[in-house]
Protein backbone atom coordinates (compact mmCIF):
# COMPACT_ATOMS: atom_id res chain seq x y z
CA UNK A 1 0.00 0.00 0.00
CA UNK A 2 2.82 2.37 0.97
CA UNK A 3 4.60 1.45 -2.24
CA UNK A 4 1.47 2.22 -4.26
CA UNK A 5 1.12 5.62 -2.58
CA UNK A 6 4.77 6.42 -3.24
CA UNK A 7 4.56 5.42 -6.92
CA UNK A 8 1.34 7.46 -7.33
CA UNK A 9 3.13 10.44 -5.77
CA UNK A 10 6.06 9.97 -8.16
CA UNK A 11 3.72 9.66 -11.14
CA UNK A 12 1.97 12.86 -10.00
CA UNK A 13 5.30 14.66 -9.77
CA UNK A 14 6.32 13.40 -13.22
CA UNK A 15 3.10 14.67 -14.79
CA UNK A 16 3.77 18.13 -13.33
CA UNK A 17 7.33 18.19 -14.71
CA UNK A 18 7.94 20.85 -17.33
CA UNK A 19 8.64 19.66 -20.88
CA UNK A 20 11.08 22.55 -21.28
CA UNK A 21 12.73 22.46 -17.82
CA UNK A 22 15.97 21.01 -19.16
CA UNK A 23 16.46 23.50 -21.98
CA UNK A 24 19.84 25.17 -21.48
CA UNK A 25 20.18 28.71 -22.77
CA UNK A 26 23.10 28.87 -25.17
CA UNK A 27 24.76 31.57 -27.29
CA UNK A 28 23.10 32.64 -30.53
CA UNK A 29 24.11 30.70 -33.64
CA UNK A 30 22.83 32.59 -36.68
CA UNK A 31 24.42 30.17 -39.14
CA UNK A 32 22.56 27.17 -37.75
CA UNK A 33 19.30 29.08 -37.38
CA UNK A 34 19.41 30.41 -40.94
CA UNK A 35 20.16 26.94 -42.28
CA UNK A 36 17.25 25.23 -40.56
CA UNK A 37 14.61 27.95 -40.07
CA UNK A 38 11.23 26.80 -41.53
CA UNK A 39 10.87 27.90 -45.12
CA UNK A 40 7.76 29.11 -46.93
CA UNK A 41 5.84 25.99 -47.95
CA UNK A 42 5.29 25.58 -51.67
CA UNK A 43 1.77 25.80 -53.08
CA UNK A 44 0.36 22.27 -52.81
CA UNK A 45 -2.81 20.25 -52.41
CA UNK A 46 -2.89 17.71 -49.58
CA UNK A 47 -5.08 14.79 -48.72
CA UNK A 48 -6.12 15.60 -45.16
CA UNK A 49 -7.09 13.34 -42.30
CA UNK A 50 -8.25 14.97 -39.07
CA UNK A 51 -8.95 13.13 -35.80
CA UNK A 52 -10.39 15.27 -33.05
CA UNK A 53 -11.85 14.01 -29.75
CA UNK A 54 -12.74 10.62 -31.24
CA UNK A 55 -14.25 12.05 -34.44
CA UNK A 56 -12.69 11.53 -37.84
CA UNK A 57 -12.86 13.87 -40.82
CA UNK A 58 -11.13 13.73 -44.17
CA UNK A 59 -10.84 16.11 -47.09
CA UNK A 60 -8.47 18.13 -49.22
CA UNK A 61 -6.29 20.96 -47.98
CA UNK A 62 -4.77 23.61 -50.22
CA UNK A 63 -1.77 25.69 -49.16
CA UNK A 64 -1.51 28.51 -51.68
CA UNK A 65 1.15 31.22 -51.95
CA UNK A 66 -0.46 34.41 -53.21
CA UNK A 67 1.22 37.06 -55.40
CA UNK A 68 1.24 39.53 -52.44
CA UNK A 69 3.32 37.02 -50.37
CA UNK A 70 0.35 36.10 -48.20
CA UNK A 71 -0.76 32.48 -47.88
CA UNK A 72 -4.18 30.90 -48.00
CA UNK A 73 -5.17 27.62 -46.35
CA UNK A 74 -8.38 26.13 -47.73
CA UNK A 75 -10.06 22.91 -46.54
CA UNK A 76 -12.73 21.22 -48.65
CA UNK A 77 -14.36 17.84 -48.44
CA UNK A 78 -13.73 15.32 -51.24
CA UNK A 79 -16.94 16.34 -53.03
CA UNK A 80 -15.64 19.91 -53.23
CA UNK A 81 -17.56 21.77 -50.53
CA UNK A 82 -15.39 24.38 -48.80
CA UNK A 83 -15.28 24.11 -44.98
CA UNK A 84 -12.85 26.93 -44.32
CA UNK A 85 -10.63 29.41 -46.13
CA UNK A 86 -8.06 31.24 -43.98
CA UNK A 87 -5.54 33.90 -45.02
CA UNK A 88 -2.16 34.63 -43.38
CA UNK A 89 -0.27 37.77 -44.38
CA UNK A 90 3.52 37.75 -44.56
CA UNK A 91 3.52 39.72 -41.26
CA UNK A 92 1.28 37.09 -39.65
CA UNK A 93 -2.07 38.92 -39.80
CA UNK A 94 -4.93 36.47 -39.97
CA UNK A 95 -8.19 36.68 -41.94
CA UNK A 96 -11.15 34.32 -42.16
CA UNK A 97 -12.36 34.42 -45.79
CA UNK A 98 -14.91 31.67 -45.36
CA UNK A 99 -15.96 29.20 -42.67
CA UNK A 100 -19.04 27.00 -42.34
CA UNK A 101 -21.34 27.63 -39.37
CA UNK A 102 -20.44 24.33 -37.72
CA UNK A 103 -16.79 25.44 -37.45
CA UNK A 104 -17.43 29.14 -36.89
CA UNK A 105 -16.62 29.10 -33.18
CA UNK A 106 -13.85 31.18 -31.62
CA UNK A 107 -11.97 28.28 -29.94
CA UNK A 108 -12.07 26.21 -33.15
CA UNK A 109 -10.82 29.06 -35.32
CA UNK A 110 -8.12 30.04 -32.78
CA UNK A 111 -6.89 26.44 -32.60
CA UNK A 112 -6.76 26.09 -36.39
CA UNK A 113 -5.11 29.51 -36.70
CA UNK A 114 -2.29 28.57 -34.29
CA UNK A 115 -1.91 25.13 -35.91
CA UNK A 116 -1.48 26.53 -39.40
CA UNK A 117 0.72 29.42 -38.23
CA UNK A 118 3.13 26.76 -36.97
CA UNK A 119 2.83 24.62 -40.14
CA UNK A 120 3.54 27.71 -42.26
CA UNK A 121 6.42 28.79 -39.97
CA UNK A 122 4.93 32.26 -39.48
CA UNK A 123 6.25 32.86 -35.92
CA UNK A 124 9.84 32.47 -37.17
CA UNK A 125 9.71 35.10 -39.90
CA UNK A 126 10.95 37.99 -37.77
CA UNK A 127 14.36 36.34 -37.43
CA UNK A 128 15.05 36.80 -33.68
CA UNK A 129 15.41 33.49 -31.90
CA UNK A 130 16.55 32.40 -28.45
CA UNK A 131 18.79 29.36 -28.65
CA UNK A 132 18.58 26.45 -26.21
CA UNK A 133 20.24 23.06 -26.08
CA UNK A 134 18.62 19.90 -24.76
CA UNK A 135 20.37 16.55 -25.23
CA UNK A 136 21.23 16.14 -28.88
CA UNK A 137 18.83 18.84 -30.06
CA UNK A 138 18.94 22.59 -30.51
CA UNK A 139 15.76 24.59 -29.90
CA UNK A 140 15.29 28.02 -31.48
CA UNK A 141 12.44 29.79 -29.68
CA UNK A 142 10.31 32.84 -30.43
CA UNK A 143 8.16 34.05 -27.54
CA UNK A 144 4.64 35.16 -28.44
CA UNK A 145 2.48 36.32 -25.53
CA UNK A 146 2.12 33.32 -23.18
CA UNK A 147 3.51 30.77 -25.63
CA UNK A 148 6.75 30.05 -27.40
CA UNK A 149 7.15 28.70 -30.92
CA UNK A 150 10.19 26.49 -31.41
CA UNK A 151 11.92 25.04 -34.42
CA UNK A 152 14.13 22.17 -33.43
CA UNK A 153 17.19 20.77 -35.15
CA UNK A 154 20.00 18.37 -34.31
CA UNK A 155 23.36 19.49 -32.96
CA UNK A 156 25.07 19.54 -36.36
CA UNK A 157 22.21 21.65 -37.84
CA UNK A 158 21.79 19.10 -40.62
CA UNK A 159 18.00 19.20 -40.80
CA UNK A 160 14.80 20.53 -39.28
CA UNK A 161 13.45 17.93 -36.81
CA UNK A 162 10.11 19.44 -35.86
CA UNK A 163 8.21 22.58 -34.83
CA UNK A 164 6.45 23.09 -31.51
CA UNK A 165 4.13 25.44 -29.69
CA UNK A 166 4.75 25.34 -25.95
CA UNK A 167 3.65 27.19 -22.85
CA UNK A 168 6.21 27.86 -20.10
CA UNK A 169 5.85 24.26 -18.90
CA UNK A 170 3.96 22.16 -21.40
CA UNK A 171 4.51 21.13 -24.97
CA UNK A 172 1.19 21.90 -26.67
CA UNK A 173 1.53 21.16 -30.40
CA UNK A 174 4.19 19.56 -32.59
CA UNK A 175 4.54 19.56 -36.38
CA UNK A 176 6.76 17.14 -38.27
CA UNK A 177 7.54 16.76 -41.94
CA UNK A 178 8.35 13.05 -42.36
CA UNK A 179 9.41 11.94 -45.83
CA UNK A 180 10.98 14.09 -48.49
CA UNK A 181 10.27 17.17 -50.55
CA UNK A 182 10.44 20.00 -47.98
CA UNK A 183 9.43 22.88 -48.57
CA UNK A 184 6.83 20.90 -50.53
CA UNK A 185 6.76 18.06 -48.00
CA UNK A 186 5.18 14.74 -48.93
CA UNK A 187 3.81 14.43 -45.39
CA UNK A 188 2.88 16.86 -42.63
CA UNK A 189 1.89 15.56 -39.20
CA UNK A 190 0.46 17.84 -36.53
CA UNK A 191 -0.21 16.55 -33.03
CA UNK A 192 -1.83 18.24 -30.02
CA UNK A 193 -0.60 17.24 -26.55
CA UNK A 194 -3.19 18.99 -24.38
CA UNK A 195 -6.23 17.40 -26.01
CA UNK A 196 -6.87 14.59 -28.45
CA UNK A 197 -6.35 16.01 -31.94
CA UNK A 198 -4.11 15.20 -34.86
CA UNK A 199 -3.95 16.28 -38.49
CA UNK A 200 -2.16 14.21 -41.12
CA UNK A 201 -1.55 15.67 -44.57
CA UNK A 202 -0.27 13.73 -47.60
CA UNK A 203 0.74 15.75 -50.64
CA UNK A 204 -1.32 15.12 -53.76
CA UNK A 205 0.75 14.79 -56.90
CA UNK A 206 -1.49 16.26 -59.62
CA UNK A 207 -1.21 14.72 -63.06
Amino acid at each position, binding site marked *: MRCLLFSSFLAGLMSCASDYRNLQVSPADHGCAEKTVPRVLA*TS*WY*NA*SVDVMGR*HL*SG*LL*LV*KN*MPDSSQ*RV*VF*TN*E*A*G*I*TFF*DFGFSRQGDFKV*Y*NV*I*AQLNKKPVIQTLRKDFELVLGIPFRKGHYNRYVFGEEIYFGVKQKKETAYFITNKDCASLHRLEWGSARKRKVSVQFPGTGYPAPDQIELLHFTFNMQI*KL*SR*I*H*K*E
Partner: protein
Amino acid sequence: MYRSQESHSRKYRWIVTACFLLSPMLTFAQYEGYKSIADISSFKKEFQRESAEVLSIQSSFTQEKVLTALTEKITSSGKFWFKRSNKVRIEYVKPFTYLMVMNGDKMMVRDNQKENRVNVKSNKLFQQVNRIMIDCVQGTILDSKDFTTRVFENDRTYLLEMTPVSKLLREFFQTIVLKVDKKDYSVNLIEMNEPSGDTTSILFTDKKLNTQISDAVFTL
Protein backbone atom coordinates in the same frame (compact mmCIF):
# COMPACT_ATOMS: atom_id res chain seq x y z
CA MET B 1 -26.70 66.58 -39.02
CA TYR B 2 -28.80 67.89 -41.93
CA ARG B 3 -25.88 67.38 -44.34
CA SER B 4 -25.46 63.80 -43.14
CA GLN B 5 -29.19 63.05 -43.69
CA GLU B 6 -29.00 64.57 -47.15
CA SER B 7 -25.95 62.50 -48.10
CA HIS B 8 -27.67 59.36 -46.72
CA SER B 9 -30.76 60.08 -48.79
CA ARG B 10 -28.64 60.71 -51.92
CA LYS B 11 -26.90 57.36 -51.36
CA TYR B 12 -30.27 55.62 -50.92
CA ARG B 13 -31.63 57.20 -54.15
CA TRP B 14 -28.51 55.98 -55.99
CA ILE B 15 -29.03 52.40 -54.76
CA VAL B 16 -32.71 52.46 -55.76
CA THR B 17 -31.80 53.77 -59.24
CA ALA B 18 -29.07 51.13 -59.67
CA CYS B 19 -31.48 48.35 -58.62
CA PHE B 20 -34.11 49.68 -61.02
CA LEU B 21 -31.62 49.74 -63.91
CA LEU B 22 -30.26 46.27 -63.13
CA SER B 23 -33.59 44.58 -62.39
CA PRO B 24 -34.43 43.62 -66.00
CA MET B 25 -31.03 41.94 -66.29
CA LEU B 26 -31.64 40.01 -63.06
CA THR B 27 -35.15 38.97 -64.03
CA PHE B 28 -34.16 37.61 -67.41
CA ALA B 29 -30.74 36.23 -66.42
CA GLN B 30 -30.47 32.75 -67.88
CA TYR B 31 -28.03 30.35 -69.43
CA GLU B 32 -26.37 31.00 -72.76
CA GLY B 33 -27.78 28.76 -75.48
CA TYR B 34 -30.76 27.73 -73.33
CA LYS B 35 -34.32 28.98 -73.32
CA SER B 36 -36.72 28.87 -70.42
CA ILE B 37 -39.40 26.13 -70.31
CA ALA B 38 -42.82 27.64 -69.78
CA ASP B 39 -44.80 24.50 -69.05
CA ILE B 40 -42.91 23.11 -66.08
CA SER B 41 -45.69 20.75 -64.98
CA SER B 42 -45.69 18.76 -68.21
CA PHE B 43 -41.85 18.65 -68.16
CA LYS B 44 -42.04 17.41 -64.57
CA LYS B 45 -44.40 14.56 -65.53
CA GLU B 46 -42.20 13.59 -68.47
CA PHE B 47 -39.02 13.80 -66.36
CA GLN B 48 -40.53 11.56 -63.68
CA ARG B 49 -41.93 9.08 -66.21
CA GLU B 50 -38.63 8.73 -68.10
CA SER B 51 -36.47 8.68 -64.96
CA ALA B 52 -38.66 5.93 -63.48
CA GLU B 53 -37.45 3.68 -66.29
CA VAL B 54 -33.86 4.05 -65.12
CA LEU B 55 -33.31 1.14 -62.75
CA SER B 56 -29.55 1.36 -62.58
CA ILE B 57 -26.65 3.55 -63.71
CA GLN B 58 -22.95 2.80 -64.00
CA SER B 59 -20.72 5.65 -64.99
CA SER B 60 -17.29 7.22 -64.82
CA PHE B 61 -17.04 10.79 -63.58
CA THR B 62 -14.61 13.67 -63.63
CA GLN B 63 -14.91 16.26 -60.89
CA GLU B 64 -13.39 19.73 -61.11
CA LYS B 65 -13.28 22.00 -58.09
CA VAL B 66 -12.46 25.61 -58.99
CA LEU B 67 -11.40 28.11 -56.33
CA THR B 68 -12.20 31.24 -58.27
CA ALA B 69 -10.47 33.87 -56.12
CA LEU B 70 -7.34 31.75 -55.76
CA THR B 71 -7.17 30.74 -59.47
CA GLU B 72 -6.70 27.16 -58.35
CA LYS B 73 -8.42 23.99 -59.41
CA ILE B 74 -8.18 20.32 -58.63
CA THR B 75 -9.49 17.59 -60.87
CA SER B 76 -10.41 14.15 -59.57
CA SER B 77 -12.05 11.16 -61.18
CA GLY B 78 -13.75 7.92 -60.27
CA LYS B 79 -16.72 5.62 -60.73
CA PHE B 80 -20.40 6.01 -59.90
CA TRP B 81 -23.07 3.33 -59.40
CA PHE B 82 -26.79 3.74 -58.72
CA LYS B 83 -29.42 1.06 -58.20
CA ARG B 84 -33.07 1.84 -57.63
CA SER B 85 -34.39 2.75 -55.28
CA ASN B 86 -31.83 4.02 -52.82
CA LYS B 87 -28.41 2.55 -53.41
CA VAL B 88 -25.49 4.77 -54.45
CA ARG B 89 -21.74 4.11 -54.59
CA ILE B 90 -19.25 6.89 -55.41
CA GLU B 91 -15.60 5.89 -55.64
CA TYR B 92 -12.85 8.46 -56.22
CA VAL B 93 -9.73 6.81 -57.58
CA LYS B 94 -7.52 9.70 -58.76
CA PRO B 95 -5.57 11.61 -57.47
CA PHE B 96 -6.83 10.35 -54.08
CA THR B 97 -8.94 7.41 -53.00
CA TYR B 98 -12.25 7.94 -51.27
CA LEU B 99 -15.33 5.75 -51.16
CA MET B 100 -18.89 6.66 -50.20
CA VAL B 101 -21.66 4.05 -50.20
CA MET B 102 -25.29 4.85 -49.42
CA ASN B 103 -27.71 1.99 -48.91
CA GLY B 104 -31.12 3.03 -47.58
CA ASP B 105 -30.60 4.86 -44.30
CA LYS B 106 -27.06 3.58 -43.90
CA MET B 107 -23.93 5.24 -45.20
CA MET B 108 -20.28 4.20 -45.24
CA VAL B 109 -17.33 6.45 -45.92
CA ARG B 110 -13.77 5.17 -46.38
CA ASP B 111 -10.76 7.43 -46.83
CA ASN B 112 -7.03 6.69 -46.74
CA GLN B 113 -7.01 6.29 -43.00
CA LYS B 114 -10.38 5.12 -41.74
CA GLU B 115 -13.78 3.66 -42.45
CA ASN B 116 -16.85 5.32 -40.91
CA ARG B 117 -20.42 4.04 -40.83
CA VAL B 118 -23.20 6.53 -40.31
CA ASN B 119 -26.92 6.17 -39.84
CA VAL B 120 -28.13 8.91 -42.17
CA LYS B 121 -31.21 9.44 -39.99
CA SER B 122 -29.01 10.62 -37.12
CA ASN B 123 -27.52 13.52 -39.09
CA LYS B 124 -29.70 16.19 -40.71
CA LEU B 125 -27.04 17.25 -43.22
CA PHE B 126 -26.27 13.67 -44.34
CA GLN B 127 -30.02 13.08 -44.59
CA GLN B 128 -30.41 16.05 -46.95
CA VAL B 129 -27.35 15.17 -49.04
CA ASN B 130 -28.61 11.60 -49.33
CA ARG B 131 -32.08 12.75 -50.37
CA ILE B 132 -30.76 15.27 -52.93
CA MET B 133 -28.54 12.66 -54.55
CA ILE B 134 -31.32 10.09 -54.80
CA ASP B 135 -33.85 12.72 -55.98
CA CYS B 136 -31.48 13.90 -58.73
CA VAL B 137 -30.92 10.41 -60.08
CA GLN B 138 -34.53 9.24 -59.69
CA GLY B 139 -36.02 12.31 -61.32
CA THR B 140 -37.96 13.37 -58.23
CA ILE B 141 -35.85 16.46 -57.56
CA LEU B 142 -38.58 18.71 -59.00
CA ASP B 143 -40.84 17.61 -56.13
CA SER B 144 -38.20 18.39 -53.53
CA LYS B 145 -39.14 20.93 -50.89
CA ASP B 146 -35.42 21.66 -50.41
CA PHE B 147 -35.21 23.68 -53.65
CA THR B 148 -37.03 26.05 -55.93
CA THR B 149 -36.29 25.03 -59.51
CA ARG B 150 -36.16 26.78 -62.88
CA VAL B 151 -35.93 24.69 -66.04
CA PHE B 152 -34.28 25.59 -69.36
CA GLU B 153 -33.61 23.64 -72.53
CA ASN B 154 -31.63 23.52 -75.74
CA ASP B 155 -31.74 20.94 -78.55
CA ARG B 156 -30.07 18.18 -76.59
CA THR B 157 -30.19 19.10 -72.91
CA TYR B 158 -32.50 20.16 -70.13
CA LEU B 159 -30.94 22.46 -67.55
CA LEU B 160 -32.38 22.45 -64.03
CA GLU B 161 -31.29 25.34 -61.83
CA MET B 162 -32.05 24.50 -58.22
CA THR B 163 -31.89 27.16 -55.51
CA PRO B 164 -31.87 25.86 -51.93
CA VAL B 165 -34.65 26.92 -49.61
CA SER B 166 -33.32 25.84 -46.21
CA LYS B 167 -30.73 27.88 -44.31
CA LEU B 168 -28.57 24.79 -43.86
CA LEU B 169 -28.28 24.14 -47.62
CA ARG B 170 -28.01 27.83 -48.51
CA GLU B 171 -24.79 27.96 -46.50
CA PHE B 172 -23.19 25.43 -48.83
CA PHE B 173 -24.87 26.11 -52.18
CA GLN B 174 -26.02 29.20 -54.01
CA THR B 175 -27.40 27.01 -56.77
CA ILE B 176 -27.05 23.45 -57.99
CA VAL B 177 -27.32 23.08 -61.76
CA LEU B 178 -28.15 19.75 -63.38
CA LYS B 179 -27.75 19.12 -67.09
CA VAL B 180 -29.99 16.28 -68.18
CA ASP B 181 -29.65 14.39 -71.46
CA LYS B 182 -32.89 14.68 -73.49
CA LYS B 183 -32.19 11.28 -75.02
CA ASP B 184 -32.59 9.22 -71.84
CA TYR B 185 -33.21 11.81 -69.10
CA SER B 186 -29.97 10.86 -67.34
CA VAL B 187 -27.80 13.48 -65.63
CA ASN B 188 -24.74 14.53 -67.67
CA LEU B 189 -23.41 17.22 -65.37
CA ILE B 190 -23.88 18.45 -61.82
CA GLU B 191 -22.57 21.91 -61.03
CA MET B 192 -22.51 23.04 -57.42
CA ASN B 193 -22.10 26.79 -57.03
CA GLU B 194 -21.04 27.97 -53.60
CA PRO B 195 -21.93 31.38 -52.13
CA SER B 196 -18.19 32.29 -52.23
CA GLY B 197 -18.15 31.94 -56.03
CA ASP B 198 -16.26 28.62 -55.98
CA THR B 199 -17.73 25.86 -58.13
CA THR B 200 -17.55 22.09 -58.31
CA SER B 201 -18.65 20.36 -61.49
CA ILE B 202 -19.07 16.62 -61.91
CA LEU B 203 -19.19 15.35 -65.49
CA PHE B 204 -20.58 11.84 -66.02
CA THR B 205 -19.17 9.84 -68.95
CA ASP B 206 -19.40 6.25 -70.26
CA LYS B 207 -22.89 5.93 -68.80
CA LYS B 208 -24.51 2.52 -68.85
CA LEU B 209 -28.19 2.50 -67.98
CA ASN B 210 -30.17 -0.51 -66.76
CA THR B 211 -27.34 -3.03 -66.65
CA GLN B 212 -27.15 -5.68 -63.93
CA ILE B 213 -25.36 -4.39 -60.83
CA SER B 214 -24.81 -6.79 -57.98
CA ASP B 215 -26.09 -5.74 -54.53
CA ALA B 216 -22.59 -6.54 -53.28
CA VAL B 217 -21.42 -3.25 -54.85
CA PHE B 218 -23.48 -1.45 -52.20
CA THR B 219 -22.48 -3.59 -49.23
CA LEU B 220 -21.59 -1.46 -46.21
